């Protein structure tokens, strides 16, 4: 018996909504902020009061253009806003301001270079719109409580072509998209705070055929892994339907991640008719060459460009560079450290092996008490011979709990490296006398035998001996011993 995926080829497209990282909302000056008390961030515009007029946020348009340039899309020369009408209590105007015809960005691609197998996924469009408020159904008594703080926050809706062929593809695409959006400071893309949301369209067709099957839209996806699970489940559900002689209905389904199943939300016949038309309150706007050039000039470096710089200019391994780049907060931390110590390789090592080793249980680097200044200081202290690596590690562990400057810890713990040659020569000599077998092995070319003697010397210096000098002394003494 063949597996479902051997018989059927999934065809998947994603619609991703991200909240743009502006200071204010899309059409009014209310703060764009998560977590304020309910209805503390509203005004006549986002409350949809009669007579209030929207004025678009220039920054939001710029972030959309920044995205368009990053994915190699076409920026519309003239673009405009349309009204999308639907009735829901979280939308007080009775319509959402969106872009139907003439989105600000058309086309472009996302390549899964960091999270996937390098597949290129085409984008159909990305357009600006405003977020709706948040409704919460009361447990008892059939009412809904509405908080309009979120209403009017700028959104960019990014629609992919149906180029994805598996749940893994979808996961990689989402991660890659998020990396681009976060690296470019376009959006925080935090699914838990709702600043990234995603709907999925799934259809399947017999392997080796080209016509698309009927597709189902999945909503209520709360994590990237949830998206993967929902897609896998939907592929199996559609295959079972088709193999039992049934057909897939065009419909929208809600995913329940806890139960691991989806349920019908609406069929195509009851799909809302949004009655789009140009919003008369908002004149069209032109995105001239000069504006695009300015946005391009101030845009941060793209992840792939950064990878190239880290490996060729900084000399980092591909692996280390990717570890840093795939988390923009870590990347920022690394850049700050490097700017202070001017030693990217050691900065990367101290962050990815030593600091990560201390960070347990999903701690964010932004919350760690050890700051880039601390790491830069340690790198410098090791470089100038004040500390050996072992002692520096000890200092870092102390700083992780109590972030006083390294010099204070070095003094407190008596960790200054012993580089005094005469003192070390005496210790190495003693070590050689006590380990005649190691000396004989060394003379016979067994380099590993040095461990016993250097180890002795480290013990004698309480771990503070300068290993480079110890090895040097040992090599010299061996000639005459």
């Amino acid at each position, binding site marked *: 018996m063949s597996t479902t995926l051997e018989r059927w080829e999934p065809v998947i497209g994603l619609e991703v909504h991200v909240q743009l990282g*502006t*200071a*204010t909302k899309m059409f*009014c*000056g*209310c*703060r764009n902020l998560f977590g304020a*008390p*309910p*209805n*503390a*961030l*509203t*005004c*006549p515009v986002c*409350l949809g009061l009669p007579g209030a007029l929207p*004025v*678009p*946020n*220039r*920054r*939001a*348009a710029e972030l959309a253009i920044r995205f368009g340039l990053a994915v190699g899309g076409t920026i519309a020369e003239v673009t*405009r806003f349309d009204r999308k*009408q*639907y*009735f*829901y*209590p979280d939308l007080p105007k009775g319509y959402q301001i969106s872009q139907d015809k003439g989105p600000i960005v058309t086309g472009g691609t996302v390549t899964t270079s960091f999270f996937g197998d390098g597949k290129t996924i085409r984008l159909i469009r990305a357009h600006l719109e405003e977020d709706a408020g948040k409704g*919460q*159904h*009361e447990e008892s008594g*059939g*009412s*809904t*409580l*509405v*908080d*309009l703080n979120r209403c009017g926050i700028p959104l960019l809706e990014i629609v992919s072509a149906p180029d994805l062929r598996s749940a893994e593809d979808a996961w990689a695409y989402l991660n890659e998209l998020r990396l681009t959006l976060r690296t470019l400071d376009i959006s925080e893309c935090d699914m838990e705070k709702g600043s990234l949301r995603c709907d999925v369209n799934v259809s399947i067709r017999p392997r080796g055929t080209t016509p698309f099957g009927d597709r189902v839209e999945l909503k209520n996806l709360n994590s990237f892994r949830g998206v993967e699970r929902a897609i896998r489940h939907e592929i199996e559900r559609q295959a079972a339907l088709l193999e039992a002689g049934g057909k897939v209905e065009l419909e929208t389904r809600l995913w329940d991640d806890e139960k691991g199943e989806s349920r*019908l*939300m*609406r*069929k195509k*016949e*009851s799909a*809302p*008719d949004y*009655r789009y038309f*140009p919003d*008369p309150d*908002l*004149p*069209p*706007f*032109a995105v001239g060459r000069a504006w695009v050039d300015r946005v391009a000039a101030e845009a941060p470096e793209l992840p792939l460009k950064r990878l190239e710089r880290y490996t060729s200019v900084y000399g980092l391994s591909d692996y280390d560079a990717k570890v840093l780049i795939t988390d923009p907060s870590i990347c920022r931390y690394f850049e700050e450290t490097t700017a202070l110590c001017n030693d990217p390789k050691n900065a990367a090592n101290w962050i990815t092996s030593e600091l990560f080793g201390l960070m347990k249980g999903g701690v964010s680097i932004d919350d760690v008490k050890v700051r880039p200044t601390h790491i830069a200081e340690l790198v410098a202290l090791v470089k100038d011979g004040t500390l050996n690596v072992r002692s520096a590690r000890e200092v870092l562990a102390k700083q992780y709990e109590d972030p006083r400057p390294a010099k204070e810890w070095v003094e407190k713990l008596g960790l200054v490296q012993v580089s005094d040659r005469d003192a070390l020569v005496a210790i190495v000599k003693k070590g050689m006398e006590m380990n005649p077998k190691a000396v004989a092995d060394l003379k016979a070319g067994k380099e590993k035998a040095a461990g016993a003697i250097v180890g002795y010397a480290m013990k004698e210096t309480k771990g503070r001996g300068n290993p480079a000098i110890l090895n040097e002394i040992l090599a010299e003494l061996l000639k005459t011993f």
Partner: protein
Amino acid sequence: MNISKEDVVKTLRLARLEVPESELPDLVREFDSIVKYVEAVAAVDLRGVEPLSHGGDARDVFRDDVVTPSLPADVALGNAPDTAGGCFRVPRVIAEPS
């Protein structure tokens, strides 16, 4: 185009309006008359004319991304017929599963 009873029912549903069955025939007639009135415009020859989306000459109107004061929550909620816990309280609406 002739407006049918179904068109009226659908429009009412989209607007979440409740109208007694007895008033539907009047509405059908009125809708129909409005649509016919507007349809007269369709008789104009518009070949080669760019569709107009805005009446004025305004273009490229933007504001800077600068915070302006929001309304105090009690003022924002001031006209609401019903509130609870700092929120507007409204009848529950569910996307219909048909």
